[in-house]
């Protein structure tokens, strides 16, 4: 091989490598990113059972049921619709009725959302940003000006 060919092959290999990495990245973004929904959005969105999503809203008052062992069921609501969620594990310290939460998981065939993680925040002033934005957009919640 001449020097020119050598250099060319190095450049082609480099570009192929970057191309593969880019392709993989966009494939992964399409496959592995999970979308955020609020209960009211689910009527219009098509979410397959088994598809990973994030479901956010407020923990509906009076719906927290503790089941066998560490399994907990509760409803997440955006004051328009509510969705039943089950979760096995330790709930975050700030998990309370009427507080904003984000749950991540997928719908089972029975329409119950099975969460494998539940997020609430470490501060009582907090409302998860996605939940706050969603509720504001629906006009059911205003930012409280406590300070």
């Amino acid at each position, binding site marked *: 091989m001449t020097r020119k060919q*050598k250099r060319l092959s*190095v450049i082609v290999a*480099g570009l192929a*490598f*970057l191309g593969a*990495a880019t392709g*993989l*990245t966009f*494939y*992964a*973004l399409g*496959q*592995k*990113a*999970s*979308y*955020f929904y609020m209960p009211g959005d689910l009527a219009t969105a098509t979410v397959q059972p088994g598809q*990973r999503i*994030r479901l956010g809203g407020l923990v509906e008052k009076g719906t927290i049921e*503790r089941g066998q*062992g*560490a399994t907990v069921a509760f409803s997440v609501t955006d004051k328009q619709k509510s969705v039943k969620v089950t979760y*096995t*594990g*330790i*709930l975050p*310290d*700030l998990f309370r009725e009427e507080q904003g939460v984000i749950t*991540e998981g997928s719908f089972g065939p029975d329409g119950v959302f099975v969460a494998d993680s539940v997020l609430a*925040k*470490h*501060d*009582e002033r*907090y409302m*998860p*940003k*996605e939940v706050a*934005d969603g509720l504001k957009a629906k006009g059911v919640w205003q930012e409280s000006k406590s300070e």
Partner: protein
Amino acid sequence: MVETGHFALVLAFALSLVQMLVPLYGARAGSQKMMAVGGPVAVTGFALTALSFAALATAYASSDFSVASVWENSHSLQPLIYKITGTWGNHEGSMLLWVLILTFFGALVAVFGSNLPATLKANVLAVQGAIGAAFFLFILATSNPFTRLNPAPIEGRDLNPVLQDLGLAIHPPLLYLGYVGFSICFSFSVAALIEGRIDASWARWVRPWTLVAWMFLTGGIAMGSYWAYYELGWGGFWFWDPVENASFMPWLAGTALLHSAIVMEKRSALKIWTLLLAILTFSLSLLGTFLVRSGVLTSVHAFATDPTRGVFILCILTLFIGGSLALFALRASRLTAGGLFHPISREGALVLNNLFLTTATATVLVGTLYPLALEAVTGGKISVGAPFFDLTFGPLMLPLLAIVPFGPLLAWKRGDVFAAAQRLMAAFAAALAAMLVTGLFVDGASVFAALGVGLAVWLVCGALTDLAVKSGFGSVTPAIMLRRFAGLPRSVFGTALAHLGLGLTLLGIVGTLSFGTEKILSMHAGETVELSGHTLRFEGLYPAQGPNYSEDRGRFVVIGADGNAKGEISSAKRFFPVRQTTTTESGIRTVWFSQLYLSLGDEGNDGSVVVRLWWKPLVTLIWGGAVVMMAGAAMSLMDRRLRVGAPARRKELVPSASLS
């Protein structure tokens, strides 16, 4: 005292403007006097910032609630250590720490830079002054830590309970020393672009700064990871949270910079690339600051959200990143390219390292920014988490780790892969054996686990092989070998240690992810639970009172094979009345390198408690490996070459790589 601090901060801002303008003009006009202004001004600026910081720390330590920031983030009942660390446990104070470290590094250049060419030093200090000026202005305009309250409240609102931990004393300062340390490399690069010249002394100067920044950043990230691990009670050590990524991206780019700077220093090749990498690394640090401080992300680190701050930092970001890249585009073609090398050589291996690391940085960048971009464009909200990074970052790291042991064994300019492979036979055999043993004899080992363990052993043995080969193992008598070993350059030990640490971290990650076990159950007092050969008996919940919290402490006794108690683990639910917040204190028992990790959940109506228990094999190696990597960096810094290598000051500098 508070007003003194405020005044010192304003003065420091004014001085940073002087530091930015006067030496820069002096370097262009050729005025020695004006260039000499930079040094003393940088040192004075640091002293004033330190005074300002001390004033704020004093206000925190003495619980002066007439200062708004103290009122919002402190409480008179807090232990003194948390009162002090609370100084930077909030937005305003942490920005002050940021500029304190920035001016500290500027002062270091001023003090230790006496052997730098005068114009280079002047330009470096000017760029450093410009960064300082932007952030001083940011603090004074949008996040003044000295704002007073009138009338002064009687009691404060307490520090966020999650932050009331020793981790806050260590993690942010280390992380900032790393983040901001890269500003020096950035300033050197921009200064080189302004001058249109990079010479050998440039590389010799940039490499130690990169090492220092990298060392601290490694420590800061590892400490943050360990803190999150034990404090948040979720038992995870890395969450691919955008804020974690924000610190990880400069680390990846910085690691690439560390390696390309070696090529530049030794072989004066890859000059332009190294310069670009130095700019990118600090740009990623700035991006990290923006992501964390602007409140575009929700996380433990986003203390308060104020849109004006976000816009302000975005402006700083655009100015510095855009400005430096534009300067690069204009000037880079005027810099001379360096030496040539064969693809299979030490240089080639380091280029490959850079290719993988920068691509990995780019995937992390995409994963972090894509959700923000998507939300801005379409309004759709997505989250990109571990599954994305496992699929993109993972495949990039595997081949990179596999070639690491080859690098140090290849010669400069033209290397021999077969000779290197021959020398690595023993390491390869050890890795293969570890892989087979893991795959065949360890219960529940997946292919990934066997591969991971093999790779980790490969890295560790590869690092040891490097030392053995360089001390002449097998070709000379043991006595000579020992003497050679002791006489090896410190940087060889540094490389070996850093690569060994990487192997240990990998072993910890694979061990925890592949062989970790976990149980969630609800327990009554007196019940026992068994996990991976460890038996625990729940003794019950015991209430206790802390200085500014009350807690229910769940006590567990570890029972040995003989039925006797071997020790105790306790985990607590703490309630902080001021903030009406509950936190979980996890209970950890370390067994060799592994840990038994326990955290308490909710109490049931029948007196039972939900308990989550993990067995995390080799987990401490994750952070232990990082400490070994830091030791490697420290070792490299002690290399003779870096201590005495810089050339003596000369009035007329020979333009070794100048352009005209």
